[in-house]
Structures are given as C-alpha cells and as structure tokens.
C-alpha cells in the first residue's frame, strides 16, 4: 500500500452515494488542485463504512479524523483547515475528538466504533477495496499461503472446527463440521458456494463486506475449497447490489492475475475457480436448497432435507454453502489461530457478529460486536439509544422471521442460544429497534406481509397459513378483530413453525408469536377495546376537537369527507360517522386543538 501522508477516505456506499459522494469527490479534486495538493493527497473511495446515519462520511489523514454529514460546500474548508493548517474542522466532527491506532487507531475513540470489535469488517473502510495491493499490505492472502504450504486439508477443517465458528447466515451450524461432512463424501467433484443473497429488509452486512473488502471473502472461499477439495465455487449475489458485484468481479480478476485463483494456485498444485451468479431478488433464494436450484437454473424453491447439500447439493454433488460473513472470518482464524478466535465470544458462540442496526435508533448502520455483548450495549452504547427521548419498546432481531424482544430482555447476551431461549433468533444479523410510537400488532403484520409475499408457494403451511394469519392480523389492526383471533394466530403459528418445509416457513410466524407472547395486552386492546395505544392503526384512531379550537376553519377545509362542522370562531366538531381517519385535520391544525386517541 503506497504510504501517503495525506489520505482522504470517502464513503461511497449506496447511502453515502445518495448523499452525493460522487459530486463531493469531484469538488475535492478541484479544491486539491487549487491548493496545489493534487499529487500529495490520496483520495480513496471506500465501500460502506457502516455509519450510514451520519453520511456522507469522510475520514481524513493526518489524524484519521472522521467527518460526518459532509456536503460539497464543506470541502474548501476541510482542505484549507485540515490539510493546509492541520486543524480539524470542529463543526463536522462526528465525536468531539479525532482517532488513532491502526484499525482501532482509526475508529477507537468514537463510541460507535470503539465498542465494536471488527473481525469480519476488519479492512472495511481502511483500504481501497479495488486495489489488491492494499489488501496484500494488510496481510491479505497470507492465510491462503499458510494453508497451501503448511497445512493438510483436514487440518484446515479441524482448525475451523476448533475455532468454534458457526454459520453466520442464521442457523448457526458449526462451519468446520459442515466442511468435514463434505470432505468425507467420496464424490471427486465437490462445489462450494458463497451465499450473498442478503434479503432481509434493512440488512446490508453482506453487501458492505463485499463492497468494502471483497478479497477477504474470496480468500476465505479458496481456503474452504482447499479444505473440502472443491475445484469450482460460486458466489450467489443479488443483482440489486451492482457496486458489490462490480468490486467482486474486479477482485476475482485481480486474484486470478496474481495467481491466488485459477490453476495451480501459488504453485501448490491446487486449483480452484469462482464464478458469480446473480440472484433475481427472491428472499427464499437465501435458503440453501432454493439457492442451489437457482444456480442450477431452476425456480428457486427449497426441497426437503436430508439429503443435505454436504451430501447432495449443487448438481447433485457434495456442496459446502456458507454465508459471506462466515467466509470473511476464515482468513483471520487461519492467521491468528483457533485458540485466539475461540477466546472471543461466549461458550457456544465464538467470535463476533455483524449487525445492521435500523429502526428507532440514533446511529443506524453496521456494527460488529463480540458474541456475548448485550442488546443494551448495542442499542444504547453503540447505537446511541432512541431518538427524541422516546421510550424503548422492543427490539426485533434476525430479520423478518425473528422475534420481538421487550425491555426485560435487553440484558440478553447476543449469541445463537441465548437469543433462541429468549424467543428470537440470531438470523443473519438484522436488528430493528422499536419505540413506543410503534404498534406491535402492526409491526407483526408488516413482517408477516413480507414473508407471505416472499414465500415460494411450495408448501401448504407457509403459502396458505401465513396468508390466513395475515388476514387475521389485518382485521385486528382495522378494529375488526374478534374473540378467539389470538388463539387462532397461535394455533396457526405453531403449526406453521413445526410443519413447514424450509426455514422461511418455519420462522415466518416468529414475529407474531413473539409479539403475542410479549405484548399480548396490545393485541387484546385492539380486539376488545378497539384501541391502538401507539396510535398507528388507523382504523382504531379517533380524532376529536378540543377546547383549544379557535374556529379558524383550516381543518374543515382540508377534510376530504366534509366530516367537520362549525361556524367561524367557534369550536368545531368532527362527525365520527363521516370521519375516515386520514389525519389531515390533525396535521393541519396549528393550535393543538385536535386530539388523536
């Protein structure tokens, strides 16, 4: 990696790109030219830095100072003050101070980064993902060299097993064991797949890893291929991730050119190649057997297991399929050893986990924490808590098929087993924070709508059962719920969980069952009292005009159904029979004279 005194790292993940990262980069070039620094300052556009809530993010060396909310207008000041006068631009600082220490040297002092432990994301943000030399400078492909020169395939799998790494795609199956099962199969042709079909709404762990550090994933895959004896591998990635695909293509070409991929890798006699397969955006294709069908050219529909892919996978051959984050952990395990890796985390869940923080939380974005970190630490220390001093209500982990955990579970340690015990799942790492303004019934409905839409339609419980559950939830949120609806939801939910063909169906009822378990009273209020305490379910809200009304008539004018009556300068009245609860009057009133109940 060329050493340069002056480095500007500019995030160009999709979120920052929306915040004009491209245009900002152009302005930087112009300003550097003006200041005569054009050939002294290296400008890197990195992949997503994960701190999306504060985008556009820019890191400036000297000092590795992180600036947030940067716009084109700020550039002249940054160039002049920071680069020429060596003084940080205080008003753009994310935290009060700047940062040091290689990776943690870069990020350590910011609460958002300092409490994280970045293993899978270790290179994201500090190197140019499109430059293989920079990856090499960060000890890239060293693990591969070590494996090829000094380890037998079985030793590699054993090391990964010893490290205690479990599949990061959600199910948490021990990775080393999966490799051993596959390696044991007699078939000489074996395949290896990287599952980058990230489909959870709001999740972007895999995308960021590939955008920010594609070589780590590739290196992990080559090591895995060596361990199981595969000659061919596939990355199955969503077509909706164009930047990730572009970087992956570049990285694959670079790796091939440098001899890390292809025939006779590093002169070891071992050959392996990787191809990219684009997914068409079906959530169910994240399920391994559906994904395999999709690569084979069929409709992405799961099939019953056993046989597991380790025995009969892609084209009927033994196949290892792991998620992006799992692959990204492999090189570190090889370099720093299983003992070091297994020292991180809890007894049964080792290492770290990347989460995509979303919802009602100050620092939405990407975080990587050691297993065993509590939900509270993530939400409050790293995530910065709930905006506008609202009250925390629940956290949904594991994407659309995870469970909603209330406040009493905030001190739950994050690992596969503790989350399962609490009634949720680890999933692939979605984490959505819900505050008091959200209605839990509505929330459950939202997630179920997603899984129902994305059900492949093959098995009856998932296809038909989730539809019926959705209908019941819909009628509850519309104020048409009846006695017995909660019991029907539970009956259907438990049946679907136990009877569905694949993981999608088996986990689809989770949001509903967990909200019934933890927020049953909200369901009962909706059904019996026709009340939505969060005021979200429109069918259950009542608007009334109170004594503060000055009779300005503004509400009367915007009401689309002429439900408001009243003479000027007298208190108006809403005819509840005509009111369609659109909320226009509430939004229009300047005197807080309309009460929403």
């Amino acid at each position, binding site marked *: 990696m060329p050493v340069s005194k002056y480095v500007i790292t500019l995030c160009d993940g999709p979120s920052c790109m929306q915040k004009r990262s491209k245009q900002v980069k152009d302005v930087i070039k112009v300003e550097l030219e003006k200041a005569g620094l054009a050939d002294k300052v290296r400008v890197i556009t990195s992949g997503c830095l994960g701190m999306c809530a504060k985008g556009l993010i820019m890191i400036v060396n000297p000092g590795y100072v992180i600036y947030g909310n940067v716009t084109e207008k700020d550039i002249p000041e940054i160039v002049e003050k920071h680069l020429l006068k060596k003084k940080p631009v205080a008003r753009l600082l994310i935290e009060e101070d700047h940062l040091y220490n290689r990776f943690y040297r870069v990020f350590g002092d910011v609460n958002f980064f300092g409490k994280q432990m970045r293993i899978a994301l270790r290179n994201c943000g500090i190197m140019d993902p499109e430059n293989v030399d920079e990856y090499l400078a960060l000890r890239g492909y060293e693990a591969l060299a070590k494996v090829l020169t000094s380890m037998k395939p079985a030793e590699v799998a054993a090391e990964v097993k010893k490290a205690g790494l479990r599949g990061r795609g959600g199910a948490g199956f021990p990775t080393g064991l999966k490799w051993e099962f596959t390696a044991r199969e007699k078939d000489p042709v074996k395949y290896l797949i990287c599952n980058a079909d990230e489909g959870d709404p709001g999740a972007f762990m895999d995308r960021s890893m590939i955008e920010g550090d594609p070589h780590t994933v590739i290196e992990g895959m080559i090591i895995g291929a060596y361990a199981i004896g595969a000659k061919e591998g596939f990355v199955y990635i969503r077509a909706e991730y164009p930047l990730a695909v572009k970087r992956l293509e570049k990285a694959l070409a670079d790796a091939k050119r440098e001899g890390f991929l292809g025939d006779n890798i590093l002169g070891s006699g071992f050959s392996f190649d990787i191809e990219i397969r684009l997914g068409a955006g*079906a959530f169910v294709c994240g399920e391994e057997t559906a994904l395999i069908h999709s690569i084979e050219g069929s409709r992405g529909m799961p099939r019953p297991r056993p046989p597991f892919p380790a025995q009969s996978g892609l084209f009927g051959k033994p196949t290892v399929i792991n998620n992006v984050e799992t692959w990204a952990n492999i090189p570190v395990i090889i370099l720093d050893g299983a003992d070091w890796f297994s020292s991180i985390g809890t007894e049964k869940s080792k290492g770290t986990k990347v989460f995509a923080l979303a919802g009602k939380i100050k620092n939405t974005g990407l975080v990587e924490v050691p297993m065993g970190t509590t939900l509270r630490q993530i939400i409050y220390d790293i995530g910065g808590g709930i905006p506008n001093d609202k009250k925390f209500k629940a956290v949904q982990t594991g994407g659309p098929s995870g469970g909603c955990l209330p406040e009493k579970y905030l001190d739950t340690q994050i690992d596969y087993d503790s989350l399962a015990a609490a009634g949720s799942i680890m999933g692939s790492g979605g984490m959505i924070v819900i505050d008091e303004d959200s209605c839990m019934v509505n929330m459950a409905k939202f997630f179920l709508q997603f899984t*129902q*839409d994305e059900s492949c339609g093959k098995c*009856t419980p998932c296809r038909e059962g989730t*539809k*019926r559950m959705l209908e019941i939830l819909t009628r509850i949120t519309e104020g048409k719920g009846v006695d017995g609806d909660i019991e029907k939801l539970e009956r259907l939910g438990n049946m679907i969980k136990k*009877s569905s063909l694949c993981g999608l169906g*088996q986990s689809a009822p989770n949001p509903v069952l967990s909200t019934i378990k933890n927020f049953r009273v909200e369901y009962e209020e909706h059904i019996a009292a026709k009340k939505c305490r969060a005021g979200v379910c429109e069918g259950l809200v009542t608007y009334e005009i109170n004594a503060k009304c000055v009779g300005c008539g503004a509400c009367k004018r915007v009401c689309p159904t002429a439900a408001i009556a009243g003479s000027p300068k007298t208190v108006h009245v809403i005819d509840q029979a005509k009111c369609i609860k659109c909320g226009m009057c509430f939004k229009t009133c300047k005197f807080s004279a309309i009460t929403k109940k």
Partner: protein
Amino acid sequence: MDKKMITIYIDDKPYQVAAGQTVMQAADKVGFRIPRLCYHPKLSIEGACRVCIVELEGARNFIASCAYPVADGMKIRTNTPELRSARRDIVELILDNHPMDCHTCERDSNCELQRLAYSMGIRKRHFEGEMKHYEKDVSGVAVIRDPNKCILCGRCVRMCSEIQKTSVLGYAHRGFKTVVMPAYNMPFRDSSCTACGQCINVCPTAAFLEKDYTQELFKKLNDKSILKVAQCAPSVRAAIGEAFNIEPGRTMEKQLAAAIRRLGFDYVFDTQFSADLTIMEEANEFLERLQGKGKLPMITSCSSAWMKCLEQYHPDLIDHISTCKSPMSMQSAMVKTYFADKIKRDPKEILSVAFMCCTAKKYEAARPELEVNGMRATDLVITTRELAWMIKSAGIDFLAIKGEEFDHPLGLSSGAGTIFGTTGGVMEAAIRTAYELATGETLLDIEIGAVRGLQGIKEGKVVMDGKEIRVAVAHGLGNAAELLDIARKDPNRYHFIEIMGCPGGCVGGGGQPYANSNSIPLDEECLMKRAEALYTLDRNKTIRRSHENPDIQRLYKEFLGRPGSPASHKLLHTHYKQHFPVGIIPESLKQQKPAEPANK
C-alpha cells in the same frame, strides 16, 4: 439398493424394515397408511403438501415422511394429538383456498382432496378468508386448466417434466399468488402442451380436465337429419369398467357397443378395424423404406400427443415418421368416403364421433390437414371418462346391458388391431403382417414378448428373409426422447420404432377413468391389467393378423386397391411439419443471419 434391515420404532413398537427407503415407504409395508397428498410413487419427492408429517423424536419440527429416510433406531410417532391437529389444519388450509362447488365439480366423489378432507374429519372451518381467483383457460381444444381448483401439489408439473419431459407446466409468482401455468401464462392453445392429458390423470382435483364435448354430442344425437356414426378405441373397452367400479382388467367390449348404440348412434364401428387398416399401410410403408424408398428407422405416428411432440421437439426426425394417419383418422376418412358411398348418404350429413382413451385425439381431430374432401373427418372426440358419464346420464345400466356386436363394414377386427391399445402393440401387429408380406410365410410365433410390458424402452429383433430387423418401443414422451437420442447417436441401430405418448400406451391415456379410492393414478398394476385384457381379447380371436381381416380385404378390393395406392395416399396418409413452441428458437435458426427489419 441397500438390503440391510434396521429397526425403527413407530408409535412405540419396533419394526424391522429395509434401510434405504423413506419413512412413508417403510410404514406402508408394516400396515400404516400415513395420510398423504402430493406424493406419487412414480414422481420425484416434492414434500410440498406437508400432509404426511410425522413426529421424529429429537427433531425440532415435524418431518415429511414421504421424504425423510429411515435410520436405525429412529422413533416415529404418527398419531399424536398435536400431529392430528396440524394435519387437519393443513388440509383445512387447502380447502379454505379451494372452490366450494364439490356438487357441481367434474371430480365430485372421485376427488383425492375430498377424500382426504373427509378422512381428516374436517367438519368445521376455522380459517376462511380470501380465495384465489383466476380465469379458467379453455383455449385448448383438448385440455383445459382451472387454476382455481389447483392445490399446488405439483404432481402435474412433475409429470410433465419428469415422465413426459415436455416441461410445459411450471410455477409462477410467489406466496399466496403462486400458480401453475405454461410459460408466459400462454393460453393452452398456444403453449407447447402436447395434450397428452397426463396432468389430468395425476391431478388430485379438477385443476386439469379434458374439454367437454358431451353436451354438443347429446344435442346432435337428437338431430334426426344426421347419421350418427361412432368408433371406439381398443383401450376404452379395457378400462371403462373401472368407471363403474369394476376391477381393472375386465373388458367390456360388447357392453360398450350396446351402450353406444343405445345412446342414439346409427352405426357403431370399431377403431380396431382401422387399426388393422393402419397396419396394412404401415407394414407396406415399412417394407418400401426397407427397400430404400425413404428413411430408416421408421417411427410410428398413431399417437396424437407424440405427433405434436415430434413437430415441436424432434423436427429433425420428421422424415422418419410414418405418413400413415392414426387409426382414428383413417376410420373417420373411411366413414366419410367408403361408407358414405356404400349407404349412399351425403358425407356432410354424417356425424363421425370417436370414443377414445385419449385427450390428444381431440387435438388431432382438429388438425386441418386431416380433413377429407374439405370436411372434418372426426367431428367429435369423447374420452372414456366422458363416455362413462354419458352412459350414466342417459340412464343406461352399463353392467346389466346385453352385449352387442360392432357394425359392418367397419367393425370387424383382428387381434392385431386389439393390441394397438397397449405399448408395443402396434409393433407386434406390424411385425405379424410385415413378416408375411416380406417373406410370404406366416409368422407362427406371433406373441412377441420382447415388446410387451412396462419397461420404458424395449428392444427386439425378428429375422425376415435372412435379414435381422431391429425394433424398439417407447411409451411416455420422456422415454421416447431417450430412445430417439439413442437412435440419433446410432442411426443404424433400429429399423422400426414405436412411440406412444402416454405411459403404458393408450391404456394409460389421458382420458381414461380416474383412479378409485384404493388406487393411485397410473398405477402400474392397473396398466398391466388393462393391457392384459387386450392381450386376452387377441388370444381369443381366430383372426389375429390384420391382413387376414376379411373386411379389410374387401375394403381394398372395393375401394382402395392396394396398400400404398394413390387412393390410400389421398385418404390414409398425411404429413408433418416442424412447429416450434412459442419462445423457442432452435440453435440451427439462431445461427442464420437475422432478417433486416422491415421498417428501416
């Protein structure tokens, strides 16, 4: 196959079962009958309906017994309260999204879903809600599709892609909107469907049906101004009894002739007669090809689904196809010419109706090149199922009716004509005649075992005049594709190939009676029994070779001259042309230069 015996526990009792099978297969053998729906023994394991779930000790969730392999020591429960409730709810969920019109449904009382719901004890609905609504696709002349009745068990999709290998049907859309359709949701008429009707056979409900022409026929049967002429295919007699709850394998030949006559037909002829006629023409054509006039191997052309399959998927073999029309079309052609002349009626006043085991014959009858003197040769095609219903509807006691004979001059047939109805039958019949035509000697050992039976591809040889004639037989379009690939790779391997579009040949046709409550659709045992019924008929006939049929001899003498004569060619032969399914451009055409756009 793994023959090792292992012990599994079902409902707490140990059972010795063979390893290497599924839980359902093992349970079936020791006296259990786990409820099931999407499972079919001839098709791949789908695991979709989830009706066959059982509890496996140590597993978090229920397992599908149709898909899960047995393992030594595994403990299965098949009948716990939780399982019963889950199974019941699953079946109810299917019902809740299924039209509630059982009384007016074509499959009423013969519907697998209905039977299943009954056995689950669903007496009350809990989860009713939105139901799917699709337009019924009635565009096809043979097969119609009603997605509203579809329960997405996937049997039709698997049948179409695995057994027939035509892959016309597939899934589209997701979640609640999932639906089975041809590519691009094309109307069936325009799709690559071969009209074989096997989807109808395996469908547990009425999502696929033949196009119903019974009302039209009833109307015309009452029209005094027209002459009503029927013909009846061999395998109808071998299977129609099943529609009247008779065990498979009993032929109802004479009852059939009597019942059809009672429906109001003036003449009841036998398609077996024209099967003999087909043999005369086909054997002659084969011998001509053998003498260098035309390409070998010659491939039969009797099966209508195969005709469409050939034009769509195997156009390279068109020159190998016998130009002979199918027996149905030959019969109709004779009805509207030879027979009309004989009774001095204007052929325009004749209604020619064919009772067939086949749905694709409805498609064949509508092929324009089969017209005779500008008239449709076969006016209506009625399947075995439709015929059984017509008989019931007309108040005919089929089981008690006194048997009658078919009418002359198109009703007398040899045993060779009879066995047309089963796979290998055409080949066997053709050999019986060709041998004698070629050698001048009578073939004594006329039962040719090599081409009988339900093996997918059968090979046999006969020595004629010192020359070895190698023949092959395939039934089902999937087996056909496989056989043709063998023939393509080794062009001299066969002289003569018989292909039938349906599993088992016509006895397994798409228009045959539905499986009853104790059997599964296309059960091999049932197909064997139907075939055996035809072989028995053949065995009991004195005339067993087509050329010995005196009515055939008379037909040639009075009307056609000789096999392959100009008159024969005009009336009994046809042609085929390549016809690519919409959306498919073959490699050979892709390489051609694209035409310049006209509007440039």
